[in-house]
């Protein structure tokens, strides 16, 4: 098992290197110079030149690439132009909120998606299946940024006007008076702030998992071993929840890896809309400000988490499926 994990980790190294390379060249081969766009026109050219030298921008591309790569993998992500702070600090600060958002969403979409898919498969072609199918396709077709705005409008901004008994906080991760709350109050405050962003992402993303689970279940239900299980006299519930579900969930595990990029793409919108202090919002701002070190570092971290996610998915799959041997 340990050997298998080690081998997979080693296998991921070229992938990570490749991604870092793509990021570097996309950013550095783009037309225009970061300093020219970022700094004031009135700055004298000598000063600009000095700044360029300070950032190492006067050296040949390949030299810069090598320097960047070596410092990058030693944890030195450089210095942010826009924030005037080390990039590593910014990342440390924003990675947490993003992972909280992504983690909660991940748990919710798999729980809700699998449950929906199983219900649909068991009730195939009956009204429940049809209604759930159309509903999930409906949410699946929604842009998350729009759904987020609508939920904010409905459950927060206009909640009292429309007679809802509660109104969720529209933006941010904590309330203004957060510092003065008790521990329980702090927890509740954070939780209520999580509701809208997580709900937005989950509604859009759970649909895909539900559809996939339904398809897998339907495929498995027609397998011979399901007939065998029924021939033993097992009740329908056991047949579905033990024999069919276990087999259907195996391929669903692989979705974990596939959903990581989608999750982070989605969280960019959600963070922007709900002013969530995460990496998604930082990267959008950084791109607008042409803050290249920050852009490169954040997109690399995103990609790294994605690679790790699919690695975890692969390992989980190997553990769960007895047919895969990892020795």
């Amino acid at each position, binding site marked *: 098992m340990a050997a298998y994990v080690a081998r997979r980790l080693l296998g991921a190294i070229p992938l990570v290197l490749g991604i870092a390379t793509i990021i570097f060249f996309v950013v550095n081969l783009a037309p225009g110079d970061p300093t020219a766009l970022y700094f004031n026109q009135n700055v004298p050219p000598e000063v600009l030149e000095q700044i360029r030298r300070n950032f190492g921008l006067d050296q040949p591309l390949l030299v810069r690439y090598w320097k960047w790569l070596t410092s990058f993998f030693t944890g030195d992500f450089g210095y942010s132009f826009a924030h005037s702070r080390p990039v590593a600090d910014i990342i440390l600060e924003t990675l947490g909120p993003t992972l909280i958002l992504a983690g909660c969403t991940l748990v919710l979409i798999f729980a809700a998606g699998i449950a929906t898919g199983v219900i649909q498969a068991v009730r195939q072609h009956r009204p429940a299946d049809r209604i759930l199918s159309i509903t999930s396709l409906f949410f699946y077709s929604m842009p998350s940024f729009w759904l987020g705005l609508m939920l904010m409008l409905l459950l927060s901004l206009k909640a009292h006007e429309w007679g809802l008994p509660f109104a969720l906080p529209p933006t941010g991760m904590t309330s203004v008076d957060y510092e003065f709350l008790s521990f329980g109050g702090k927890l509740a405050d954070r939780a209520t702030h999580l509701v809208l962003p997580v709900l937005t992402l989950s509604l859009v993303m759970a649909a895909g998992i539900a559809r996939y689970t339904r398809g897998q279940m339907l495929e498995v239900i027609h397998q011979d071993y399901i007939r065998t299980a029924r021939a033993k006299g097992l009740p329908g519930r056991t047949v579905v929840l033990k024999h069919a579900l276990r*087999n259907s969930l195996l391929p669903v595990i692989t979705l974990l890896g596939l959903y990581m990029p989608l999750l982070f793409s989605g969280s960019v919108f959600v963070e922007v809309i709900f002013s969530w202090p995460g990496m998604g919002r930082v990267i959008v701002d950084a791109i607008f400000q042409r803050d290249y070190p920050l852009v490169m570092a954040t997109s690399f971290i995103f990609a790294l988490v994605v690679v790790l996610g699919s690695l975890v998915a692969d390992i989980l799959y190997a553990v769960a499926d007895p047919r895969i041997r990892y020795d």
Partner: protein
Amino acid sequence: MALLEVRDLRTYFHTEGGVAKAVDGVSFHVERGEVLGIVGESGCGKSVTSLSVMGLVSEPGRIEEGSSITYDGRELTTLSEKEMRGIRGNDIAMIFQEPMTSLNPVFPVGDQISEALRLHRGLKKKEARGRAIELLQLVGIPVPERRVDEYPHQLSGGMRQRVMIAMALANEPDVLIADEPTTALDVTIQAQILELLDELRERLGMAIVLITHDLGVVAEVCDRVVVMYAGQVVEEGPVGDIFGRPSHPYTQGLLAAVPRPDRREGTLAVIPGTVPPPTNWPTGCRFHDRCPYAWDLTREKMPPLFDLGGDHRSRCWLVEHPERREEVERTRPVFTGGAAQ
């Protein structure tokens, strides 16, 4: 009273393309401790018959009103799903054609055997495991205490079929339905499995319904035979009668199509054509469009099962009109090597 009695079983599939009458008025019975063979080509309804007995026919299939399946005097067709579950795997068990796909790939084989024991016998986990090992031993699996924890993919096809048998035998059923149990296996393994089934029957005293298209298998292990064609029983009787003096042209055709070492010259006979689609059975005798003896009567009127005496019955007008048989055979050979190209 027979242990298992099927009377006028009709299982129809209501599809958008019409009603497929997969099983259309089948009757047979099985006595305690005997081996009944059900023979026929693919599509004749033999598998659906066995699934009907198990109550495992799935949508859009339905056992029609008026069908009756009794086990030990109990009517099964009117039982609730819950009551039927108590019978399935307990009193009547079944093994399937494909040992490769009939075992759940994600559970150890021992667990899959134990499951049946814990369900019907209420055994504890440990007891069930012990019994599972005994059962694996019974079906001739070497080193059962190790095999019990292995997954299906670690076993060969023959081993898996043995596991299937062990699973079916777990609760010592009175009736074991074996649907083509050897078709997917190598010839040498086939013989071993058949031998095992026969031996287990003797030891445990259960009845076996053996569903197969292989007449060689039937001759080897069966006491009585039911020949099915197009959703009906066309001939039934003791194995000696069926092989010794078959009455129905279809049975004769099947027998003539079996390679026999004692008949070396000539080619094998072939029954022309294929089984018609179950949505559209022919009128009259369902075999008439493939039958060398067919005449007006056979095309118009369905023959009843004529009693030939000695528990031997045949659904063929030739029983009433033997002159027709001579007439045809005078002009050309029927079901011999030369009849078919």
